[in-house]
């Protein structure tokens, strides 16, 4: 399995506070990796460091030679950051998903890519509508379309379901599952909801400033370190749900 990104002993500090302490893991092509942990465990810091938004204090992040930074798609936990009055249509918002390296791509090619991603996500009819007029679930799909429009190899999602109601949340996880299995997009999903993501992810990274667990999701419920963190009953529940899924 080829490694897309290699995180080696990465430490991130804000002044004297250490948010991530000597973290190492790898993201391989076609992984569905869930980064989980309690609030303040360094999940979002780790994700922002991966995206180049926060500098590494120590350690190194290495991308494979055939992987470019502009092949990353990113879905933030903030949906429609500017509120309902921002004057932009869904089409205009999705165009902001093209990286600078695609600036000179012909408009007709960009339009084809926009049509393709909006068809895939079932939001083609929303293109001329202002973003602020859409429901939370629709806005989330628009943001996902923006993250996918340039056909990224790696999709990073930061707590994407935190603002969604339970039914839409399940639909959203199934959509991500579809992208992983049928579109072969490598997924990195940040979440505090271990129970839900462990059903879908193939690998789990459990953080609490440092790495508590990193491995296949099947091995998660048997981990003593996880049982100590979330409690024996919760770990047993994870095992039962996993067995039920299988």
């Amino acid at each position, binding site marked *: 399995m080829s490694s897309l990104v290699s995180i080696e002993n990465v430490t991130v500090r804000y002044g004297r506070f250490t948010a991530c302490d000597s973290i190492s893991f790898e993201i391989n092509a076609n992984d569905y990796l869930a980064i989980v942990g309690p609030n303040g465990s360094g999940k979002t810091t780790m994700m922002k460091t991966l*995206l*180049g*938004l926060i500098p590494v204090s120590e350690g190194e992040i290495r991308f494979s030679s055939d992987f470019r*930074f*502009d092949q*990353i798609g*990113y879905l*933030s936990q903030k949906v429609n*950051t*500017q509120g*309902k*009055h*921002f*004057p*932009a*249509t869904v*089409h*205009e*918002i999705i*165009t*902001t*998903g*093209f*990286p*600078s*390296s695609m*600036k000179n791509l012909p408009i007709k090619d960009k339009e084809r890519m926009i049509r393709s991603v909006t068809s895939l996500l079932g939001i083609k009819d929303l293109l*001329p509508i*202002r973003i602020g007029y859409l429901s939370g679930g629709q806005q989330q799909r628009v943001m996902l379309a*923006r993250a996918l429009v340039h056909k990224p190899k790696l999709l990073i999602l930061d707590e994407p379901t935190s603002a969604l109601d339970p039914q839409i949340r399940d639909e959203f996880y199934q959509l991500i599952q579809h992208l992983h299995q049928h579109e072969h997009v490598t997924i990195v999903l940040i979440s505090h909801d271990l129970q839900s993501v462990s059903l879908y992810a193939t690998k789990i990274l459990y953080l609490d400033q440092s790495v508590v667990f990193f491995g296949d999701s099947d091995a998660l419920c048997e981990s003593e370190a996880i049982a100590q963190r979330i409690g024996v009953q919760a770990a047993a529940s994870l095992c039962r749900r996993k067995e039920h899924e299988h």
Partner: protein
Amino acid sequence: MNIDIIISALQYTFMQRALLVGIMIAISSSFLGIFLVLRRYSMIGDGLAHVSFATVAFALLFQQSPLIISIPIVILASFLILKLSEENRIGGDAAIGLVASFSVALGVFVSSLAKGFNVDLFSYLFGSILVIGQSDVIFSIILSITVIGVILFYFQDLFALTYDEEYAVVMGKKPKKLSRILAVLTSITIVLGIRVVGTMLISSLIIFPTVTALQLNRGFKQTIALAIIISISAVVLGIFASFAFNFPTGSTIVLVNSAFFAISFLIRVIKGGN
């Protein structure tokens, strides 16, 4: 104001010049306006207008062209505001306030040193587009086209940055570079606009058309198109009204812009838009 007055007004060279320069500046300022208003940078325009007051005073003291003297100094002031805004202990609004009040104080101080140009200074405070010279016309048109061209070139980057700065950074956009480009374009537009409505009213050319267009709930490009139409209409109506009724041109343009805003605001409220 009937058609005869409009036709007779168009016979005059000074009216042709005023309309030409006014329309070009209306386009560049309203095009720029949407990025400044949505990024909460509207008051930078106001702060830089105060800086241009000081630079005009210096230009008149040394008997130089205010346009040529003002542009580089106002650009430097815009960089200073950006730099001060990045400091944790000074907010963006406080940075604008510092630079603006210092500049006005400096302008008043300089004008008190040299008696005799206070009348000229007054014309730059409230605009004097009807007495614009040919060289200023050419200079204004070239710079307006430059501003519009640069915005068009960086349009997608500026839009991405305005909507979601963090995402724009992930997509490889350079926020510091784009902020500086916006600051330079704003500085040029401010200096050009002082001829039209004066240093006291120039920020209205940037803010009013955009805010008026925003009331109409359209997409980004449509909002820009509406702002440009509103801005051109206000400038043309203002210039003709000032010719026909002997009103001061700059303030008439701003009052027409205010009326457009009041109408669009009422339309939105009546239609129940939120």
